[in-house]
């Protein structure tokens, strides 16, 4: 039994919270996507199946698995009735309407608790419901720029703009917090029977998801600076990314930390026939015979300083002479923590993810074959993650959802 089996979630369709609805739906919640006539805008977002502009949106498919769809024009009286009936049948409402809109419609928390006293209402807005910035428009880009992440992301060359990481991470981060909120409130409901209103701010979500950038300022009054592919820090640090022989990049992470680790690195260099190209390799071999070796002795003990410098150069040389994958596996096998910079599809086809069952097939009755999707972000064996259905067609489930609520086809026609 999935964890949220029997929990009904009403999601007022909006691209910024689609991820939140999917996370709950894939864990068994009955997520009902309420779309305006014409459908949620992201039904028209690229990429499209078979690359047909204006065709089926793969973007929409991804974000809306395990949901059912109904259409309601909330401006109309009949739709308000239907919406109230739907909320009365639900446990959670999640929405991202502009502050004030639901109140204008007579469908805000204060109205909804009349039909569902123990409702959990999760509002997710750019700046929260209560701050003086609440009415400002925002997109994923402006949230990441104003909220802190972009300041820390980019290149050593500061004539290149700060970078917004790809993939709607501003919306997705807010969605993570929205689901954590919904689950926290659901647990509390399970103990006390009580519902409540939750005010999630996307801007606040970005602000507390910047690691050191915030607490370097809060504690020391220091400002971090963006650096290529590595942590933004108050000072510029040494580069970590290396272009490998196959044109892909690797990230070098940490040097060895034990005498044996330095020895293994020497042996690897030797195995690849690269020792002659690195005269300093001798310091790695020497380090092997020490009793201990640590960062603290850099600059104090000349041999240690030389060994760490040689380790850096050795990793660089090996990476330049290996594929990114080969570098990753070779280093990890001798306990050196490095990574290959994979594209999403390379990771998806990688043997490790495949072996973990990350590739899942979802049935699309309209197509000849099932479609492969990203799999479970977590594995809960007793209450498993599962995509229960492909994304819904617009209004596909109106009759089966509203019928049991006593709302018939004629009333639905009035409502949409």
């Amino acid at each position, binding site marked *: 039994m999935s964890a949220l089996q029997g929990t009904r979630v009403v999601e007022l369709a909006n691209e910024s919270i689609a991820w939140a609805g999917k996370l709950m739906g894939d864990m068994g919640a009955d997520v009902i996507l309420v779309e305006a006539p014409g459908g949620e805008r992201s039904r028209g977002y690229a990429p499209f199946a078979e690359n047909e502009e204006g065709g089926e949106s793969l*973007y929409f498919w991804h974000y809306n698995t395990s949901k059912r769809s109904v259409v309601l024009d909330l401006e109309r009286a009949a739709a308000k009735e239907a919406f109230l009936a739907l909320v009365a049948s639900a446990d959670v409402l999640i929405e991202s309407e502009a502050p004030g809109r639901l109140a204008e419609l007579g469908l805000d928390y204060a109205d909804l608790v009349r039909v569902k006293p123990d409702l959990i209402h999760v509002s997710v807005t750019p700046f929260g419901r209560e701050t003086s910035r609440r009415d400002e428009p925002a997109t994923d*880009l402006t949230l990441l720029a104003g909220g802190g992440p972009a300041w820390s992301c980019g290149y050593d060359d500061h004539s290149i703009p700060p970078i917004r990481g790809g993939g709607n991470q501003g919306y997705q981060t807010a969605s993570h917090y929205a689901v954590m909120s919904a689950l926290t409130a659901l647990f509390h409901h399970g103990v006390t029977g009580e519902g409540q209103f939750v005010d999630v701010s996307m801007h*606040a979500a970005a602000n507390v998801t910047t690691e050191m950038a915030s607490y370097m300022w809060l504690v020391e009054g220091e400002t971090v600076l963006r650096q290529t592919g590595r942590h933004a820090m108050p000072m510029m640090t040494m580069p970590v990314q290396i272009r490998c022989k196959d044109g892909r990049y690797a990230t070098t992470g940490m040097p060895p930390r034990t005498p044996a680790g330095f020895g293994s690195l020497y042996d690897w260099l030797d195995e690849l026939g690269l020792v002659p190209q690195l005269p300093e390799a001798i310091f790695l071999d020497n380090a092997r015979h020490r009793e201990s070796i640590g960062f603290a002795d850099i600059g104090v003990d000349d041999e240690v300083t030389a060994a760490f410098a040689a380790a850096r150069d050795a990793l660089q040389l090996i990476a330049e002479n290996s594929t990114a994958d080969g570098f990753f596996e070779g280093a990890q096998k001798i306990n050196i923590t490095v990574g290959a910079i994979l*594209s999403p599809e390379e990771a998806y086809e990688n043997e490790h993810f495949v072996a973990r069952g990350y590739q899942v097939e979802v049935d699309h009755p309209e197509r000849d074959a099932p479609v492969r999707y990203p799999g479970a*972000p977590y594995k809960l064996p007793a209450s498993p993650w599962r995509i229960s259905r492909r994304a819904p067609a617009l209004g596909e489930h109106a009759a089966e959802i509203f019928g049991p609520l006593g709302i018939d086809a004629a009333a639905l026609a009035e409502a949409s």
Partner: protein
Amino acid sequence: MSQHDPSPTRNGHVAPNGTALGTVRICDFTGQLAGAGATKWLAAFGAEVIRIEDPVNQGMWDVLRNMPPFVDDRRGPDFGGGFNNHNVEKRGITLNLRTDRGKEILTEIIAKSDVVSENYAAGVLAKWGFGWDRLREIREDLIYVSNCGFGHEGPYAAYKTWGPIVQAMSGLTFTSGMPDREPAGWGYSYMDHTGGMYMALAILFALIHKQRTGEGQWVDLSCTDAGLSLNGPAILDWTVNGRPSRREGSPEGNRSSSPPMAPHGIYECAGDDDWVSIACRGDEDWAVLADLIGEPWAKDDRWRTLAGRIASQDELDEKITSWTKTRDKFDIQRSAIGKGVPTAAVQKPEERIEHDPGTTEFGLWPEVEHAKMGRVRVDGLPAHFSKTDWKIEQGGPCVGQHTDEVLSSLLGYDADEIARLHEEGIV
């Protein structure tokens, strides 16, 4: 859930009523951010989180205990600012798990806990004799959540990671950057933050499942699995269309093709490393922005339509830069936002923390009382609950700060026994 009463000594007073998770006790081995971030959320909502740390190395498995930032010149495992940030509202005890007595005490704590959480490398807890089979033996309905870079199964299970490695291996570093340049990646451990969120989600899902069925379980969380799920549309583009993300012009830097928007970018402003982001969602936003710019080029007919703006986006971006780069980023933000166009200065930490009503009015930077550091501001949480809101008042625990308290209030040990455990180096 646990049949425990709120500890009378917790934080010096009775655990507050009206918390969302006040009935939950967590035996917590997490550290750094990927683990500690998860239990920070749970603790702030009232869960009793008991950190178990090693007295021999003074809890330094979590290296953040003695890493910058520092409030003053003092150094040591009780002074790391990052550790304090991630461990507010938790209790900390020391327990030497190399000793049989230490293992017995841990067993007693687990027996009284709903959740055991850890983010060690795969297999570490099992090596100490607390693998899943043993945990389940101690408490049949236990929830155990392990969190590591590659999970406990699969060819890479033995490999080590930290945030930037997880991001590299799950596609996230690749998708952050300018086209035809090396990846820019993430200037912080995005997947430590987000891995912590998935760990919190996993714990909450499992708690709800247990609330409904009485059943516990072991959740094997792999941060790279979670990370790879954050680029879904790119993966479907691959599985359905066979189109890879590794292609010319990809990633797209600060531009947006899904949905298509132009202008959509981060532009240079007057000032020191000052930038502003602008996103025109459609022709209407552009018309408003063009008016605001007020220069003849902005009224160019080619740019009335999205297709036209996209077709000559390089030129459009150059023109916009010529306008932004003599102006103050906040002036641009104010005037464009005033007319309804999504615009935001790229804020430096000081700007968003000290001068932004979007954070300050939200109460986003609470000040905690830390036993040795004194009063320190930390990251708050980005959601407010109408009935059971979070509380962040107590700083992260010093090494062993709550050892005696937990031994006496949770396990009922008397002062003599506790003194003996100290003498024998068990705690």
